[in-house]
Each structure stands twice: as C-alpha cells, then as structure tokens.
C-alpha cells in the first residue's frame, strides 16, 4: 500500500518568466484576499471626525496587505525560487469530511455516533489504515471520550442521538 514514491518532479504550468512560482502565486492570493476584505468592509463607516469608524482599520490593513501581496508577487518574478509544491487530495478530503461530519451530527446524533463516524472517515485519509485495528481503536476512543468529557469533566455534551432520549 505504501508504494507512493517520494517527490515526483512537478510539471510547471507557470510561464518561464516567473522564476519563483511559489511566491508568485502566494502573492497573488494575498492580493485576492485583500481585495475581498476591501469589498467585505466597503459597507462600513469610515473616519468620523477624529475618531475611527468601524471600517477604518479593516480597510487600512486590507490596503496594506494588497501592497505586500504585490511586493511578494514582484519578488516572485524577479528572484529564483521553488516550484509549486504538489498537492494531494486524499488527506485533505477525508480529514475535512471528518470534521464536517462531526460538526453536522454532534447536536442531533450525540457524541458517541459522531465521534465514531468521524474517526472512521478521518482514517480513510491514509492509505496505510488497517480496518480491524482502526475500528477497535475508534470504538475505544469514543468510549474514552464518552466517559471523559461529560462525566469526568462535567461538560454539557449529549451522548446519545436526540430521538433516543425523547
């Protein structure tokens, strides 16, 4: 299962004149975030006489970030640097799914259900997972959490699904 080779050379989709694609893309992304923040804070009040309005500081920092992003992009063109790193889909996908599943089920299905399912979904994120072992550990971990959080720590966590309590 663990036959994936180390770092395969990445084919660059960047034009030749971009000598540091990592910074180039990074800088552009920062500029995009800054523009988004400027848009999101455009409805807020600006300076009111001598005192700051709600929108003053966000716009100030967004403008600063825009400038910094531009500077990083320019540096990405001018200096030699690294290629874009390779992304993998498996880890991010399953870990994210697992987190979302926990968030969506915790209030209605209770902790026992949501912790166990999330554990199993997260485990899909690694090709090295051995299922029997994972299942046993998942059950034990859930049991441990079910005792630790509501009982030992007295947190208001619901353990069972809502329909079973009613």
């Amino acid at each position, binding site marked *: 299962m663990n036959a994936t080779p180390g770092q395969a050379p990445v084919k660059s989709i960047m034009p030749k004149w971009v000598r540091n694609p990592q910074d180039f893309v990074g800088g552009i992304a920062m500029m995009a975030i800054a523009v988004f923040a400027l848009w999101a804070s455009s409805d807020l009040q600006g300076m009111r006489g001598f005192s700051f309005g709600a929108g003053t500081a966000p716009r100030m920092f967004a403008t600063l970030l825009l400038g910094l992003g531009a500077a990083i992009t320019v540096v990405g063109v001018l200096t030699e640097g690294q290629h874009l790193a390779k992304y993998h889909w498996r880890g991010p996908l399953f870990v994210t799914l697992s987190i979302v599943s926990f968030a969506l089920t915790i209030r209605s299905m209770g902790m*026992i259900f949501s912790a166990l399912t999330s554990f199993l979904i997260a485990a899909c994120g690694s090709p090295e997972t051995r299922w029997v072992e994972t299942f*046993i*550990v998942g*059950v*034990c*971990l*859930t*049991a*441990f959490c*079910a*005792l630790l959080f509501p*009982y030992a720590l007295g947190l*208001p966590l619901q*353990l*069972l699904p809502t329909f*079973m*309590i009613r």
Partner: protein
Amino acid sequence: MNWYGRSLASGCLAALAGLALLSAQAQAQTYPSRNITMIVPFAAGGPTDVIARIVTGHMAQTLGQAIIIENVVGAGGTTATTRAARAANDGYTLITGHMGTHAASVPLYPKLAYHPEKDFEPVGLLAGTPILILARKDFPPKDLKEFIAYVKANESKVNAAHAGIGSVSHVSCELLNSVLGVKPIGVPFNGTGPAMNALVAGQVDYMCDQIVNAVPQINGGTIKAYAVATPERNPSLPDVPTTTEAGLPAFQAQAWNAIFAPKGTPPDVVAKLNAAVVKALEDDAVRKRLLELGSVIPAPADRTPAALGTLVKNEVAKWTPVLKPVN
C-alpha cells in the same frame, strides 16, 4: 504496542458500563424525568452566571433532577438567546436571560433573530443588581447635583467609560446620558475589568456599572459613587444615596436576571419551574448569598410568570427610545 492495547481494553469495558447506566436514566415518566439544561448567555463566573448557579443549585433539589449549566458566550448574549428560542419547548432547555438579552437587545440589534416577548414563556424573576453612577476618585464634583452641572457644562471634555456595546454598563450609561441630555465621548472597553481599571487609574471620568463590581473599589477609596439607581438604598453601600434622594429621579436602572423557557412550553411545566424558583428565593442560604452580591431579591408579587412578562414588556418599551439613536 502492548501497553497501548491493554489501556484500550480497559477503556472499552469502562465505556460499556457507562452506557448501561445512561439508558437506565432515560425511563421515568413525569416532568422532570431527566437533566435540565440551563443556558447562561455569559461566561462562567460573570454576575448572571453566579446568580443562575446559586438559584438553580436550589431548584435542582426541589425538582429532583440535575440542572446542567451551559455557558454560551457571544454577541452580548444574543447568540445563546437565539439558540434557546429555537430549542424544543419541552421544559428541558431553559435560559437565564437578563436586561440585555431580553430587553435592550431589541433596539441594539436590528437583525435580532428572536423577540423577548413573542418567543419566550416567562418563568420567574431571580434577582436584580442595582446600577451605580461612578467616577474617578479625583473627579471634581462632590455629589450628584454637582456632577449633573459639571457634566452639562463640560460636555465636550468629559469621557464616559463603558464595558462594550450591549453591556449593562453601556446601556445604563446611555440611559443616564439621555436623562441628562448630554452626549459625552464614550470610551469603549472590553469588559468590566478593563473599564474599572481605567477608572481607578483616572484615565476616564465616569461610568455606570453593576454594584457587584464596584463595592470593593468604593470601600477601598479608589473610585467614588454618586448614587444608586434603585428606589431604595443598598445594604452593602448604606452611605450612597438613591438617585431620587440625590435629585435625579428619572434615572432608574437595575440589571435584572430571570429564567425563560421557549414559547409553547406547557403551562404546568412553567408552573412547576416557577414554584421551584419561588422556593429557592425563600431559602435562607440562597437569600444570604444573593444579598452578599448586593442583589435585590424580588418581592413575592414580582415572582410570578405574569409579573415577569409585564417587566419584559415595560423594559423593552423603556430601552427602545434610549438606545435607538445609538445605532
């Protein structure tokens, strides 16, 4: 690996035992047959939380079920109140609301997702905390009359502190300013602690705050109090006059705390809960602890659900004109 496996096995066994216990719990018939969740819309240890814990501790004995406090913090308590408004109306989810969440929030938050009168069943009033007019210790005015004159004459120079938009100290200060007809610079702080620190250090001139936070500072001489905004003097500060005595009867404010249930909670459940509140308020130990906090315990006539309903209605009507211009 062996060590890991062994601890796993023992964990599993313990969990099974726990689950068996749980299912046995969910059997009984009449209300309350299981734990009640009490949402407190503020952090553990705050004035509302302390009052809620003191009273619900006694209520749990009367009802024979544990009451679990769930502190949900955010947006001046409105996040938690929204959640309570949407909770099942079976009497197992309650909320300890206060002046802010169930009255001042209406004008303060135009997009409020609930209405204090329409989305809740009033259960019972717990306790009120009087509000004081405080100033730094070297602020020139000596009494409330001088204070009123001074603030009016120096409107552009004085700084009023408050503990953040929507806080008790903020809304009561707005009320005071509207009664006085002044609009001084309001310096916002993040909570009562930092605001009090600034007042003690003399960085700001005056503020309004709940009695709990202020008594030790007044007794220690680090700040001074002009008046208490209740009809009667408070036993913890016998020398501080009421606003009526000192010449500003229009300024009356009290941070009240009360229990609410989601709209549609059965009347017999509300009655049972109210009876538990009333019983708690008659208990000597509970009364003693509330009085230590400087709280005012409601008179018997004010302890009914109907009385609380009226209070909410009057308070919403009172705060709306004061706080509307702020936004």
